[in-house]
């Protein structure tokens, strides 16, 4: 069976490259084929006509984190993962499958666990130990049955099932030590004061040095006499944050009955200092999770096969009673010299010290985490699936019927212990906040969602000689209920407490495959799905797909060639839709909002009343329906010389009917324009996966490259063409940066004696300018710099190229692996991190790279005109300089060492004596280094410019089994 061997070989290095070699070897010996998803029927790895990326569950354990979305950077092609916050309770990486695809910001992939759709708040908390494989479904053939849920790709997760054989027990323990990936620290008080003097003088005209801080004050800062607070140091702890996880799984069974069970525990603390101080204030962001899953399969009475899978978790989290994003915003922007954390050593009546705070810096960062109390919440989530299959071979061989039902839900109860504190400054109370004692408020689960899903399927699977026929037809429906507080799509207006939103969906889908002699495969699939978001009559749409594959290596003329182990050519065409838009649901119907109004009354010193204005939210469009994504894909899978693997996929996605606002409507209509299915985006891409695996004596080598290049073009966006043709989004990539082209900085020579720009020079329409301000090119030469001069100033903040280099070496019991992952072709706008790059604005602080700003005070010995990178400093918002312009655009490309691991597996012969099946210890590191312009020049994470930082960690681990 040549074919069978090919499957094994293909599986070896394609997806499982980084799995410890012994595991791989044992799989091969056990005769396991490459894993493939069960989408209506179990996909056949050789015959499949689809483009699917698979990631083995074992790899996910290499990144100790509370969120599985952080665990598969760079393992495959066709997806992009952007790392986000490292906060233990809010750390989902952002996943995009095959590019942005659309400018509709509500569009996202759909997630399925064990064949049923669910919500990320459930799926992201699965443990690596319970995941068999993650699949990313990418092309028209793979997504043929998903209908209105398929437009943005599908994340398909399958959990581990039992096996027949003697019981096995596996134990995993991981201990991680986490630090912020990077923190860019503002300058200290002396540095702040010196640059502030410069900014202050600039704002007074820039001609004379008019310092705000005297030399004595600066000297005092340097001597430690004035306040000089490193707020990060105050708030973040010095020790690393700890991550601990332990899980134990059991599996086994007989030919009629199989079971798998896992019990897991995770605990992760955040970066905030949680030492109790003498006032007994303490809190930190912490996350603690308990997981339990059982998957049970049983067959009985010859024709029945039943499956019950129940998996769920309990998560407890706690955090300071202050928004963590705002806290980090304050850490980034509060100057070092505003005040000391405590106003004085004076003691309040209750024995606590007085917190500092002022009207412009009201939220003392240390008091924010220690003086406001804590928030805690308890999440409960479970998915329970039941499936019953009847083999109807007595009617005709290969026929079966299957029914399935799934319930899943998630609920959060929360408790806030809150208090407030008086803001003091120099012994005087500031702001209207006053010390208050603790109050407790509870929320018993108004945050929740639930799904109820039903499915019935009729299938057929039979071989007639060289002909093989596989097919299935299903009906499925779900109803989903989400509490109004959870509403994530930003519906306008009228919110009341405890309201629920219901979602309903129906789908009829089918897949039919015919193959001949494992050489030629043809497949047809379809979905006819209906969404409740549209008007009756427009609810249902039909999405067909056709695909084919030719396994060339199984042809007679190649079958005996040793050099070509596998050669397969695939092609697919298929359509799918998506039934959400960023503008909400029911766009076919008029809904009313009470935005706006008018104040009345208020006589005799009473409080004025307010009359609400009730108006339609927008003009309704009865025709509105789902967008449509038409996908084309061709692919080649090959393996040569039993060592080299090559996979190539080229694709084109033509998305039409994206919901946009019809901006051709006149203002005089007096209502916001209706939404229409008019937006168009074309996406093209190329995926390349290369692998090499070889066993040379005791040394086993595996290297791989994964690369995805994606580009897209907006063809229509519903907008009136921009005033500057060069800045019209149509014809460019989604999210392309448009703005002004910076042309250096104004110099003294540009101004007349009265301080005004010399005549003839283009006048910026953003207010008065002076030397050191950004000069823009007058691309539309009318003597004024305004909208008409805008042009493309950079790529977007989304990479065109997403790639990784993977390696694995083992020698005897030792194994070493790494994952390097990088991006290219993206830009970053520094103004997205204003608090770091626009010093002093809104009373914010200043960073070290202020030394790259333009300045000229010859008498003070300051001359940074040459080579200036940033405009002159200012203490206030400078409208001219903070326009989107090429000045602020930087290369967003990066290369990160996502994972590096060294492990040792103890020899079998030692373990047999203590009846152990295996034992491995390892040490690894996550995000050990980063190469990027932003990182190297400004200490900024190119994936996350501001906010709670991402995590880098060193971890140790132990796995063993009996």
């Amino acid at each position, binding site marked *: 069976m040549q074919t069978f061997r090919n499957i094994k070989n293909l599986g070896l290095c394609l997806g499982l490259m980084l799995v410890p070699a012994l595991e791989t070897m044992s799989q091969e010996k056990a005769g396991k084929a490459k894993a493939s998803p069960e989408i209506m029927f179990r996909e056949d790895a050789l015959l499949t006509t689809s483009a699917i990326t698979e990631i083995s569950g074992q790899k996910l354990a290499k990144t100790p984190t509370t969120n599985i979305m952080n665990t598969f950077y760079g393992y495959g092609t066709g997806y992009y993962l952007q790392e986000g916050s490292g906060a233990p309770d809010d750390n989902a990486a952002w996943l995009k499958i095959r590019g942005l695809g659309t400018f509709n910001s509500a569009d996202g992939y759909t997630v399925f666990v064990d064949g049923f759709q669910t919500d990320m708040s459930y799926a992201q908390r699965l443990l690596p130990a319970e995941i068999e494989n993650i699949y990313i479904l990418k092309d028209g053939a793979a997504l043929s049955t998903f209908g209105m849920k398929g437009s943005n790709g599908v994340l398909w997760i399958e959990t581990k099932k039992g096996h027949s054989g003697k019981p096995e027990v596996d134990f995993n323990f991981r201990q991680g030590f986490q630090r912020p990936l990077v923190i860019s620290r503002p300058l200290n008080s002396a540095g702040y004061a010196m640059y502030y003097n410069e900014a*202050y003088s600039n704002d*007074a005209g820039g001609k004379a040095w*008019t310092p705000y801080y005297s030399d004595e004050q600066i000297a005092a800062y340097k001597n430690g006499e004035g306040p000089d607070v490193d707020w990060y140091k105050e708030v973040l702890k010095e020790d690393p944050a700890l991550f601990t996880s332990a899980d134990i799984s059991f599996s086994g069974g007989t030919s009629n009955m199989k079971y798998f069970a896992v019990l897991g525990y995770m605990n992760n603390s955040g970066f905030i200092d949680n030492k109790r101080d003498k006032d007994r204030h303490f809190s930190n962001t912490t996350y603690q999770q308990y997981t339990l899953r059982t998957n049970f399969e049983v067959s009985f009475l010859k024709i029945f096969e039943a499956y019950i899978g129940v998996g769920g978790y309990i998560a407890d989290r706690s955090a300071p009673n202050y928004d963590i994003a705002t806290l980090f915003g304050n850490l980034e922007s509060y100057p070092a010299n505003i005040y000391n954390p405590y106003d004085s050593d004076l003691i309040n009546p209750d024995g606590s010290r007085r917190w500092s705070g002022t*009207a412009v810096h009201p939220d003392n960062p240390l008091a924010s985490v220690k003086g406001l109390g804590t928030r805690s919440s308890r999440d409960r989530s479970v998915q329970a699936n039941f499936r019953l299959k009847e083999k109807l071979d007595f009617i005709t061989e290969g026929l079966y019927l299957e*029914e399935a*039902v799934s319930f899943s839900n998630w609920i959060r109860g929360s408790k806030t212990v809150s208090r407030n504190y008086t803001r003091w400054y120099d012994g005087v109370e500031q702001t*209207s906040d006053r010390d208050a004692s603790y109050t407790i408020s509870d929320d018993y689960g108004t945050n929740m969602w639930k799904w109820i899903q039903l499915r019935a399927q*009729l299938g057929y699977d039979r071989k007639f000689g060289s002909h093989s026929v596989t097919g299935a037809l299903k*009906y499925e*429906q779900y*109803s989903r209920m989400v509490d*109004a507080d959870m509403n994530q799509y930003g*519906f306008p*207006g*009228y919110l009341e407490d405890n*309201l*629920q939103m219901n*979602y*309903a969906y*129906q789908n*009829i889908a089918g897949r039919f495959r015919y193959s001949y002699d494992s050489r030629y495969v043809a497949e047809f699939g379809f979905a006819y799905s*209906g969404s*409740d978001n549209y008007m*009756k009559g427009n*609810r249902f749409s039909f999405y067909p797909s056709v695909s084919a594959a030719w396994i060339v290596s199984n042809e007679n003329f190649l079958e005996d060639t040793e050099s070509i182990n596998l050669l397969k050519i695939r092609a697919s065409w298929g359509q799918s839709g998506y039934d959400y838009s960023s503008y909400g*649901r029911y766009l076919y119907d008029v809904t*009313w*909002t009470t935005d706006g*109004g*008018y*104040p*009345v*009354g208020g*006589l*005799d010193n009473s409080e*004025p009343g307010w*009359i609400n*204005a*009730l108006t339609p*939210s927008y*003009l309704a469009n009865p025709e509105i329906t789902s967008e449509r994504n038409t996908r084309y894909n061709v692919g080649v899978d090959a393996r040569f010389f039993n060592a080299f693997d090559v996979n190539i996929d080229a694709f084109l996605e033509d998305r039409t009917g994206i919901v946009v606002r019809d901006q051709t409507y*006149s*203002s*005089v209509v*007096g*209502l916001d324009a209706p939404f229409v299915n008019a937006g168009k985006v074309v996406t093209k891409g190329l995926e390349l996966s290369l692998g090499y695996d070889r066993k040379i004596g005791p040394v086993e080598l595996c290297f791989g490259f994964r690369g995805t290049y994606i580009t897209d073009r907006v063809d229509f966006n519903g907008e*009136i*063409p921009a005033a500057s043709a060069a800045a019209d989004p149509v014809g460019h990539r989604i999210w392309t940066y448009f703005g002004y082209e910076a042309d250096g900085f104004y110099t003294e020579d540009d101004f007349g004696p*009265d301080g*005004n720009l010399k005549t003839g020079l283009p*006048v910026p*329409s953003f*207010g*008065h300018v002076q030397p050191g301000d950004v000069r823009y090119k007058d691309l539309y030469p009318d003597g*004024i710099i*305004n*909208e008409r001069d805008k042009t493309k100033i950079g790529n977007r903040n989304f990479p065109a190229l997403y790639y990784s280099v993977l390696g694995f070496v083992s020698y005897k019991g030792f194994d070493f692996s790494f994952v390097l992952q990088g991006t290219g072709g993206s830009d970053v706008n520094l103004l997205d991190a204003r608090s770091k790059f626009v010093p002093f604005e809104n009373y914010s602080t200043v960073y070290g790279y202020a030394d790259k700003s333009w300045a000229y005070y010859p008498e003070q010995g300051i001359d940074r005109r040459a080579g200036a990178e940033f405009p002159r400093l200012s203490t*206030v*918002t400078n*409208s001219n300089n903070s326009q989107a312009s090429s000045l602020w655009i930087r290369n967003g490309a990066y290369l990160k060492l996502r994972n590096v691991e060294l492990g040792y597996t103890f020899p079998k012969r030692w373990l047999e004596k203590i009846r152990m099946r295996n034992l491995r210890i390892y040490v690894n590191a996550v995000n050990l280094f980063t190469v990027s312009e932003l990182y190297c020049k400004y200490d900024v994470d190119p994936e996350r410019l501001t906010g709670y930082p991402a995590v880098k960690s060193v971890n140790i681990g132990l796995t063993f089994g009996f």
Partner: protein
Amino acid sequence: MKKNIIPFFLICPFVLSCDYLDTKYDMDITTEMVESDYTKVAQIGQSVYAYVKSGLWELDGNLSAARSDEAVQTTPGLTVSLYNNGSWDDLTNPENYLYDEFYKGIRNANYFLEYSADYKELLLVNRDTISDGGKEYRRDIDNIRWMRAESRVARAYYYFELQKRYGGVPLVTESLTDNKFFPKSSYERITDYIVSEIDGSIDSLRLTWQNSYGTVEGDKTRDGRFTVGAALALKSRALLYAASPLNNPEGDREKWKDAANAAYEVISMNQYSLDDSYSDLFVGAAALGSPEIIMAYRHSPENTLEKNNYPIGTPGGNSGITPSENLVSAYEYVGEHDSGSSRYENLDPRFYATIVYNGCEWNGRIIDISKNGQDSYLNNQSSKTGYYLKKFMAPNLYLQQDEMERHIWPIFRYAEVLLNYAEAMNEAFGPDGLNGKSLSAKDALNMVRSRPGVNMPLVTTSDKDEFRKAVRHERQIELAFEGHRYWDLVRWKEGDVLSEDILGVRVSDDVSPVGYEKIVVEKRVFTVPKMYRYPFPYYEVQRSNGILEQNPGW
């Protein structure tokens, strides 16, 4: 399980048409809910007020004074600078959004008038008219009737605000559901519409909300909505603008007569009179209940205005809108000014109610603009003009503790009507002409000047041109910072005033009494005749495919 699902599966092609997909999230108000609820019908009526504007927020979240010669904005880079340096256009006009908003207001009025056309029947639906003798039903009938009249006045208000900016605009008098463009109607056509809408609704408007009259009870909680007086004041303003040089290039005297008659209608109501205290009228909530206020926008307690405009030397302040020397030097001295006394002694009392100047006490400290003073021009973001704003500001707010105060913006007040009357009567009949009325132009002007506490010497000229200057000057002083100055200059075609240099003062050292030198603090660009009219917003012109013609010069 099996039993239930198999039949379900077999009929699934048929269930697809069933109501499984009829979900509705019960968060938004649907049309059915609106139609079954009187409160919601009333809220549709109230929507005509949604875009009635307060001048306290007009430009950059502040007063609009810095776009005229009244003041300069200290904070750099705000949108007012587009007007000041002349770089605004159809794309960047900071008030482009108003074109959308005013037509939304017009649409709300059109829709409500159509929707409530059969309001008596509409209100009968599901209504118990028996148990209370129909009292509640009749009350609701009255409410809707008033609201319908107010809708017509609100619509007139929006059209006036549009024509003030754009000249002739598209006239839309029905609620549209499909995309439709209209060519501009003429300025006269819009004015005629405003007048006819106001005349047509006067009989159904309330005379006042504060007091009962006839059988109708007062309802102070609704005060602030349009009344007969407000509608007539709007008509007076609209006709004054229509008669002004910009909109009446032939100098048609009949238009001035119309304007005078309209102002006289308000005066002859005998319902309004000048307040006894100019200085108190603009502070806190004093204006509410004042006989001078015809209609006012009432703000809840806040301190944005103070945060924006208190001197930077006062903690929490940002200097913001600072009065110009151009305005300050327009204030008259009472009698002869003794050159030995301080520059700011003996001025029109309204000066002290409007402007904070060097040496005066403001918020508990003495303003000191000398070189080494707390408000020195050398300080970053101190006033460039040497003055700070007082009118509309609540004094002594402790901003550090976020202290707040109420603010009232007069939309129409009686002094403006008197000045409208004086201006129109002078143009029509000269300073002393009566034409059968009880009041001459000069009488009206002098009423304003002789308000208790102001008591400025009476204007005596009988020369029409001299008197015109006097009225224009009086408007500049009396209505300072109330959003009139820019538009007055535009309708008088005094664009050259808008392009004059803005002046400020510096203290001259070592002179006693303190001497002041005038300095230029800001250059202004105002292109005539182009900028007398706003450009229509770029996107609106683009999408109209030539139906909406851009104003000349833009």
